[in-house]
């Protein structure tokens, strides 16, 4: 067991973990942050996407020990108040950009840094940005609309 210290959603956690423990399992099982979902465990589906020092990464492709001393942000950071959704969450709801909702957490976390860097993206930019996240329900069309709507909402807070 190895001791690690990780800042997750602004809270510092110090825990003993096995070196082989996946970061996705650490977040879900050790910290109880089950909003991060696991769909493939080989880095393709993107459901487990989180922010690692601000960058969108796959939590299933990292070990928890690699997060030692780093800052992690999960979907739970956006808001847990269902009455006051984050603009990206609001946009997803308005445009029906989720169906089963399993892949959604990862998509939201992919979009947070994307929209920061691209506040006014084209449809082609959006589709390119979404290629790292698989959604089996929506056919992506409403997700593209949601990103356009989120860009609008974030420009006019």
């Amino acid at each position, binding site marked *: 067991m190895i001791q690690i210290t990780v800042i997750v959603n602004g809270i510092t956690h110090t825990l003993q973990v096995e070196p082989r423990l996946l970061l996705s399992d650490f977040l879900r099982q050790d910290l109880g942050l*089950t909003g991060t979902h696991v769909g*493939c465990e*080989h880095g393709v*589906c993107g459901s487990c996407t989180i922010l690692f020092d601000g960058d969108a990464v796959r939590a299933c492709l990292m070990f928890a020990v690699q997060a030692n001393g780093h800052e992690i942000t999960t979907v739970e950071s956006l808001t847990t108040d269902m*009455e006051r*959704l984050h603009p990206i969450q609001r946009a997803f709801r308005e445009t029906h950009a989720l169906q089963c909702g399993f892949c*959604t957490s990862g998509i939201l976390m992919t979009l947070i840094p994307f929209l920061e860097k691209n506040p006014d993206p084209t449809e082609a930019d959006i589709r*390119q940005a979404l290629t790292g996240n698989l959604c089996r329900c*929506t056919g992506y*069309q409403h997700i593209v609309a949601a990103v356009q709507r989120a860009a609008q909402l974030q420009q006019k807070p």
Partner: protein
Amino acid sequence: MATRYFGQRIQRNEDPRLLTGQALFVDDVMLPRLAHIAFVRSPHAHALIHRIDTKSALKREGVIAIFTAEDLGDYWQPAPIVVPPPPIQDMTFNKRTQPPLAKGKARFVGEPIAVIVAESRYIAEDAIRDMQIEYELLSPVLDIEHALDANQPLIHDDLPDNLGAHVVQRKGDYDRAAQSADLIIKRRFDYDRGTAAAIENRGIVASWDTRDQRLTIWDTTQAPVPIRNGLAKLLGLGENQVRVIAPFIGGGFGPKVMMFYQEELIVPWVAMHLGRPVKWIEDRAENFVGTSHERGQVHESEIALTADGKIIGVKDTFIHDCGAYIPYGLTLPLNTQCTLLGCYDVQHYTTEFEAVFTNKTLVAPYRGAGRQHGVFVMERLLDIAAKELGIDRAEIRRRNLIPPDAFPYHNEIIYQDFAPLVYDSGNYEPSLDKALEMIDYQDFIENIQPQLKAEGRYVGIGIATYVEGTGIGPYEGARVQVMGNGKVSVVTGIGTQGQGHFTSFAQIVADQLGVEVCDVSITTGDTNLFYWGAGTFASRGAVVAGNAINEAAKDVRQKILKLAAEKLHVTEDELELTQGVVHLKHNPNIFIALGDLATQANPLRGAVKPGTEPGLEATNYFGPERGATANGVHAAIVEVDPDTFDVHILRYVVVHDCGNVINPLILDGQIHGGTAQGIGNAFYEKLVYDDQGHLLSISLLDYLLPNAMNIPHIEIGHEVTPSPLNPLGIKGAGEAGAIPVGPVFAQAVEDALSEFGVEIREIPLSPSRLWELVQQAQGKV
């Protein structure tokens, strides 16, 4: 009613929980003392199992227990059959269902052989490598066209051959009618499908409470009530001792229906046996081999026509792949038979299939459920006929559409609901016209395509029609209750996997009771809250459960009016329900809030009249006499890159008629998603096996799900032909988008590549396969 929510594009009630990561999925269930399960699966497609040695695995620290078939005692028996065979004359059906763990013989790669229980999933998976299993390899049966050959090994040793079922169905007399034909076309078609690949894999958590003697199971199932009933019986418990919860499910698409998967049989047994809660979560590699596929059929088909393109009859013979077991009966090949004729008036039809066992993962419904295969055959036959007869592809379809005054239209053959197939209602020509108009069909063919082809571009157009049998029985039910806080609770027995039930059902109730949609709380998939039902499959949730909810809500409305009339000393017709209150029509200031009325409906002292039921609550059921038939038209314009043979979809149009629409926003989403799965099936996804029956495409790197760059913007048009079979006039829509994509894609690509003379008679395609077909057409191979 002041506002009607039915028909409005309302945002979903379920979204805030999902968007904030607070929705409960099965893998999110954490319990004290939870142990974890990994399955030891067969690495061989067909092998005798001579010996299983668990000793060294049991020595591993953290391993709690290991069970094989021998340890299950009387519990070891083949799974219950989910769908029994239909009453078709002279049919053969050899019921063979999967056992909880393979005993003596493994019949496909991935079949569970042993179950390891450990303190963590990591340790349980470590112990898989400690297991020593002695196999004797048998040659596998893999090719469906040779599965019945005399020299093939037997998958089920007690059968004379590998035949699962044989069915012949007839409408009219094809052989006689075809004698008068001006043109007969005969072709072979290969239609292969893949796997649903929901982003959430399957999972089960089971907990046995020894003091309470009750079992609780969280299961990624589309049909919790049948699972509860089946497991109670198998485990020797009363249904009241078993609670199955299907919480939020991360996509279903068919394979999560009530399959009695091996893991569904084993995990609850282990929980009871050990007296400890256990969890099994499928990983992606397991999903590829352990969760049902749909896979392929090979058709030998023939169509007889007059010179002016009228269909005289169709004859179709096909082989259907069952996989190693056949738990879901004949739903898939029956759907193929019953969907093949589609929107067309065909008086003579002979259809025959042999369903054969193979040493592959079991085959069961995946969105469309066999309908794709039939639609592909019919639409391609019409394309070939149009070319032979010199008739436009849209025109040959128009000439054969069932006219609007011919409904109910009888196709006579037996459908998956075991009754003769009858289309309840339809008006097909407006859907065709709208699709042609939306995609600018004439302009494309006459002007745009010649111009682009002259520029050296390979562009083509495709158009296909289809019907979808939806909303079959037997029944669903619901309980609607006004609560003391004025909000409304609705419970029903079906499961939810993203279809928006928490919203569309709430819209129905909101209209009946005059409350806001957000004040109606829907619970699906908890057998302790609603006891009865069949499940979510066959595009039936909205039709069957939706109408049951409507009936129960109507009953509650009557109770509200009756009690409020008593309390306000008026007659019921002087009352109106709006904004959560019941008030006098002529004076809205005199009202009772529904929550207060609900409290008054449950008195704590005094006497009530005989027969009085407490509360503002009602339970009701709905069972349609038969399914409602939806229809639609898809059209696409594609461009093929002549160097890479990559296909770019330039436009995609869907015109869809599913009767009255509860929530068009949700319906659009269903169509987008179905169409995307159809595009995946047509061009990206393929299950590839080696010659020993190992699945090679066993990761999402090898089995390509379409991403956001692969799916085009989809343009949707609606027609509305209500169903006469249910009070809401609705038809199902869940599977529609996925059904006709294959023939549209094949037709458009063939059109784009017309100068090469390619005739496409198979799905899936891929760039390399298209290149091969062009090479063949040019005589280069």
